[in-house]
């Protein structure tokens, strides 16, 4: 009985420690603290500072965009997106393997871990990665700073012919 109690307490402690997340620096409508941690971490690995497009994922406010994005969708989709975040966050247990969560792994280990998802021979695992990258990319590319850095423009003659000018939208 005592042994059983001890195991139960240890398990509870493990769960509490493992699933506790700090309060984010700002409020989000749809993302919970755990989601924010994962999105920040993935965004840092996928869109780090510097490189060909200098804007980082943090500067592009990927997390803020994803929060708004979830608001445009039905609760069932929000649930699926959160499930995907939780999977990425906790699956190091299976694929590294380590007791650490994805967001707690050192940067290099995070990269190796995501590369494992990207190149997996298991189709559903690749699909999860593709969905994650698609979501992060949509958020990144929606940033006007990123658009400018990439060089996206509307031809002048189209701006002139537009029913509603872009500057007014």
């Amino acid at each position, binding site marked *: 009985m005592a042994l059983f109690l001890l195991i139960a307490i240890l398990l509870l402690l493990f769960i509490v420690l493992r699933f506790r997340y700090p309060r984010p620096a700002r409020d989000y409508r749809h993302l919970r603290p755990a989601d924010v941690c994962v999105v920040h971490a993935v965004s840092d690995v996928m869109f780090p500072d510097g490189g*060909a*497009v200098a804007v980082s994922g943090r500067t592009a406010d990927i997390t803020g965009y994803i929060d708004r994005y979830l608001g445009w969708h039905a609760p069932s989709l929000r649930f699926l997106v959160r499930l995907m975040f939780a999977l990425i966050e906790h699956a190091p247990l299976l694929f590294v393997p380590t007791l650490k969560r994805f967001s707690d792994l050192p940067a290099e280990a995070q990269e190796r871990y995501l590369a494992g998802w990207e190149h997996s021979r298991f189709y559903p695992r690749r699909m999860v990665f593709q969905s994650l*990258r698609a979501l992060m*990319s949509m958020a990144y590319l929606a940033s006007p700073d990123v658009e400018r850095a*990439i*060089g996206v423009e509307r031809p002048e003659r*189209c701006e002139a012919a*537009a029913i509603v000018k*872009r500057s007014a939208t």
Partner: protein
Amino acid sequence: MTDTLYDGIIEYKDYTGNRRESCDAVVIGSGPTGAVAAWQLVDRGLDVILLEAGPVRRPQDFTLDGAKTLAEVCYEGGLRAMRGKPMVPTMQARVLGGGSHINSAICVRTPQFCFDDWRERYGVDWVDRATLDPHYDRVEAFLGVGPTPADVLGRKNELFRDACNALGIHSEPMPRNVRGCCGCAECFTGCPTRAKQSMDISYIPDAVRKGMRVFTSAQVVAIDHDGRQASGVRAIIVDPSGRPSGHELRVDAKKVILAAGCLATPVLLQKSNVPDPHKQIGKGLQAHPGCALMGIFPDPVDPWFGATQGYQSLEYLRDGFKMETLWAPPAILAVRLPGFGKRLKEYYGKLRYSAFWDSFFALKHSQGRVRARPGRSFNPDVTYRVDRRDIPTIKTGLIKLAELFWAAGAEELLPGIYGVPEVVTRDQGLRPFEQADLKPEHIVLAATHLFSSTRMGPDPKTSVVDPYAELHHLKNCHIVDTGIMPRSPAVNPMLTGMALADRLAGQIAERM
């Protein structure tokens, strides 16, 4: 700015309670097929009501954010996929004008060899080029269909043209339903200049001027029938995001004409318990799965300049694929780029130097099925299986695309295919594609052309509607959307869908 284009159209804000209307013919769905059918019926002097689940979308509602457009304008937030291996994303617009509001305005006539195939396999001997050409002519004239002018091609389209010329294969400027296109490449998020002649600015306002009544935000949830004939429909009023308002609209009609789209129509029929003794409704779904390659050139291409999809090659239609140029908001296209971190950013940095061209496939062996989900959801449950026997067609389509890119002077290709290197260089040529041991789930496909879920045919055991597009087992209920095509039209389906609707609506009016 006063915008009188939509005067007379009932919108969400106009509903104050339940309503009951009656008419000669009620058309469900305002996409290309529904709009043309409704216009044709009104033109023949019938009293017509057009019901559309989506809202009116005006230029001030447009956003260049591709993900937001998907979420706002498409069913299931634009995240619909056909289940299978691979999962194939697909989308349907929920807006006045249906698919024409977000599509690239490509209008191509189906070649005769396809109609021969429809006749040989499904006994459809009542449509061919000779019977449809007058309808193609009429629709094209109404919508100003013409080749994309040289001054709005932009480099992504010109490179495609030059590559086809260099290889000595057919190519032509894309025929499109536009008037005065400036080449901004924003067709998907909504044409900012109203150059694109989508249904919401062409057929529908004209039909309203002739007396048609249009109710937007009216989602039909049931076809009224007694098991032998249809007598009208019931709709719920939904807000622009699709949430029910609590109000209802009932329409009594002599004819019910379904044009809700290839996925929505079978669901509506199944939910309405329409007789289907041979279980044909939703069966045999066909698609044009497509795959795009990104080619990187030494000089800037600026793919965001020039008509969205301005050039095509019909060279390989008989081999089962069509090649064309492609553009969509970066947020949608770039999601298929490989890698992450600095590598991914490097590819984003090369977007200015890139062109996206795609092949889409008319696959002989692959097909799917549409089923209604249990409960109150009207979202379809769609399965689609890419058959291994079709892989050689897909492979050839990709190789021919790669060949085009090299002929155009591309330095690198990003195929986005599992098992093919992330970047294929000029030196590697076609080898990585030729040597790839492709399986269906290795290829990233998407399908925006769907058909054959409610096939027409002479035999009630193998089809859903007869030569007049009337259900074999329910009188006064017709289908005119792309679901009635017995098989692939080989090319982009909108124009053939409209020509068929034009013909069928005329016949329905004559028989009333």
